[in-house]
């Protein structure tokens, strides 16, 4: 089989890692938590990094009026389907289709990825800003507006006494690398097509 075909299929199959490993992780560090609190985000669930971390995050966050992190969100129904469809589609394209389809798959995946990130951002924004008006503690920004407690989308950020870290995990790395492979597959396919033409 052609090398680019294999790459295309391997690339899309790497997305399957998302079903076994977390996509993202948010970790909260503070002096009184020598073992930081953390939450792993999978495509279909939130999970404690250490037993009861989410419960403890909720307990702590209720002081500033944040809602409890929900057991589940609608995305957890949609994401697995989208990923499964993309894997099947990717393998199908790798087997049967012209290399140009690789690029279409890649762009589609990129758009879906960005949409997913944007959705995640919205969720985080809402989680960090939709505060109980009767909150025990109220903090304001220097300009007088109510302070939000949104964790960063990517990177690290100080939130009151906590340092919040938000970074991709193995599932996401698998997805990024898989997408990268499909793009390489496209380039290889294109190169080969040129060669065939010039012959």
């Amino acid at each position: 089989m052609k090398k680019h075909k294999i790459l295309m299929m391997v690339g899309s199959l790497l997305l399957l890692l998302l079903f076994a490993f977390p996509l993202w992780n948010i970790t909260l560090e503070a002096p009184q938590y020598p073992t930081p609190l953390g939450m792993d985000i999978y495509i279909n669930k939130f999970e404690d990094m250490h037993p009861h971390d989410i419960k403890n995050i909720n307990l702590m966050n209720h002081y500033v009026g944040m809602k409890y992190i929900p057991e589940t969100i609608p995305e957890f129904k949609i994401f697995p389907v989208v990923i499964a469809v993309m894997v099947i589609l990717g393998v199908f394209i790798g087997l049967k289709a012209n290399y140009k389809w690789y690029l279409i798959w890649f762009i589609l995946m990129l758009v879906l990825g960005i949409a997913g990130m944007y959705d995640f951002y919205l969720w985080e924004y809402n989680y960090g800003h939709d505060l109980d008006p009767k909150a025990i503690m109220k903090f304001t920004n220097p300009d007088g507006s109510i302070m939000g407690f949104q964790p960063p989308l990517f990177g690290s950020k100080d939130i009151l006494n906590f340092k919040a870290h938000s970074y991709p995990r193995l599932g996401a790395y698998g997805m990024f690398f898989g997408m990268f492979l499909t793009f390489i597959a496209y380039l290889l396919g294109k190169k080969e097509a040129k060669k065939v033409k010039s012959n």
Partner: protein
Amino acid sequence: MFMMGCGNNGNKTQEKAGALGSNAAEKVYVAPGEHDEFYAFLSGGYSGNVTVYGLPSGRMLKEIPVFSQFPTSGYGYSEETKPMLNTSHGFIPWDDSHHPDISQTNGELDGRFIFINGNNTPRIAKIDLSVFETTEIIEIPNSAGNHSSSFVTENTEYVVAGTRFSVPVPQVDMPINEYKGKFKGALSFISVDPEHGHMDLKFQIIMPGFNYDLSHPGRGNSHGWFFFSTYNTEEASTLLEVNASQNDKDFIAAINWKKIEEYVNNGGGKKMPANYAHNVYDESTHNATSTMKKEVLVVDPTEVPGAVYLLPTPKSPHGCDVSPDGEYIIGSGKLSADLTVHSFTNMLKAIEDKKFDGEAYGIPIMNYDDVVAGVVKSGGLGPLHTEFDAKGNAYTTFFISSEVVKWKLGTWEVIDRKPTYYSVGHLMVPGGNSRKPFGKYLIAMNKITKDRYLPTGPELEHSVQLYDISGEKMELLSDFPSHGEPHYAAGCPADLLKPKSKKFYKMEENKHPYAIKAPQDAKVVREGSNVHIYMSTIRSHFTPDNIEGIKVGDNVYFHITNHEQDFDVPHGFAMIGANTSEILVMPGQTKTITWQPKQVGVWPFYCTDFCSALHQEMQGYIRVSPQNSDIKLSWSLDGE
């Protein structure tokens, strides 16, 4: 610092104090946030507890209540823990805790449990080292002054409880001056279930009416034997100071417990009526139960030939310590200057050759010269206790001359001596009662403190002194006050316990009959004049908080469940006017305390442990109405 040093040693030490002083400070310094290398568990004597210290820093880490009520946590006050202090004499909220010993496997510390004896109302307690809590207490019948206790055999097959006072067995109303020949000394062997650690009084050996002072297990070759020092072999019953000091030699009793175990397993011994409590704390129900046992199996040692021998030992021996290899049994004559060291091999040989020097109540007495391996001519006064390092050295405390003497096993030569401040009783090397001592540090537990610390009125806490014993000469590193009267101690490397330490109780494993699984299950239930309040705690509120419809004369039970699931987040609960104590409830735990309101009014309760930024707001009220009032039971849930 060394001005109080005694005699010839004072000067020598003083010269080095300058340079070594700073060096010693470095050796005990544990930087903020760093952990100590060893745990030391000191018996609390008349405080009835065990206190836990870190070594080398000497920082006190925890006080574990064992035989005493303890308002800090509610131990012995809460409904769940009250049964722990039940005995055949009723509820006894105090005892005199003496000798802790850590459980062993193959003669090495395994860090599962600590056993400790209650001296006054004979009891043995077990502390679970994953939670540092007392989880089992067994009372010892036919015993009095449970002193030669609680030491464990090589695989924790048994914990022993030897009686200090001989008493009539069974108890009977009789003239005290008929003591001789009629009083008996019970040596109890309590089996420990290898899996769960549950204790069971398997058999008692009914010995002559001596006083059984201290004991140690054999190990290695002598595994299967237990050794008990005795005094008052005169069997005097009055003015013992004089009358029990007449014999030049008392005995160390050598007990072949394997032989007696075999005898018992084959149906030997006889069942005798008894009455003693066995109290067990169950970690899943968070509740203790007390069961009264009605029978004990007793063994007459003369019916098991070859199981018990008496080793003559001069002069009222106190300590009875066995070297790590199990070969030497060291007897310290309180009234002597010398240590008598018996050889286990010599003893076996003499038994084989049937060389005896008479008998006492049918028990063979060995020839002193046949069993003695050597004598340490120490030059000190009042030797008491001996511990060992891993290099063939022994360390003995001298009460009267206030010093620790280091000497060599086998050659019996004295290598070093250091003063203590003052009047030292026991000493402890971590792993000291095992085949594997960790010979880096030694602590001496002194009976008298005098001018060592800032004065605190007529009473000072006893002083503990820490010595570095890694070199040829001992070095005094530091001293620190302890709590109560520490007798013996047990120590082990921190690495043995740290990984096993429990951080909280899992809520889903809480099987307490009055637990609620979540705050929304909180409720108040009246059953006649008993009112059960199922209450939840979480940072920073109680659910329910305002309760009305309670009446004077009611019996109110507060069943508090702490719904936190995080390390070190207890909540407390205290009720105004309660005739008990507060309780401290660990994450995932349920505890119950009672209150009998006597006056009408609106009475507050609150959280006693500063749990969060809003700890002060963690409070509520109970409205108490007259007995004939018809106010309905009501309460508020989470602000509603």
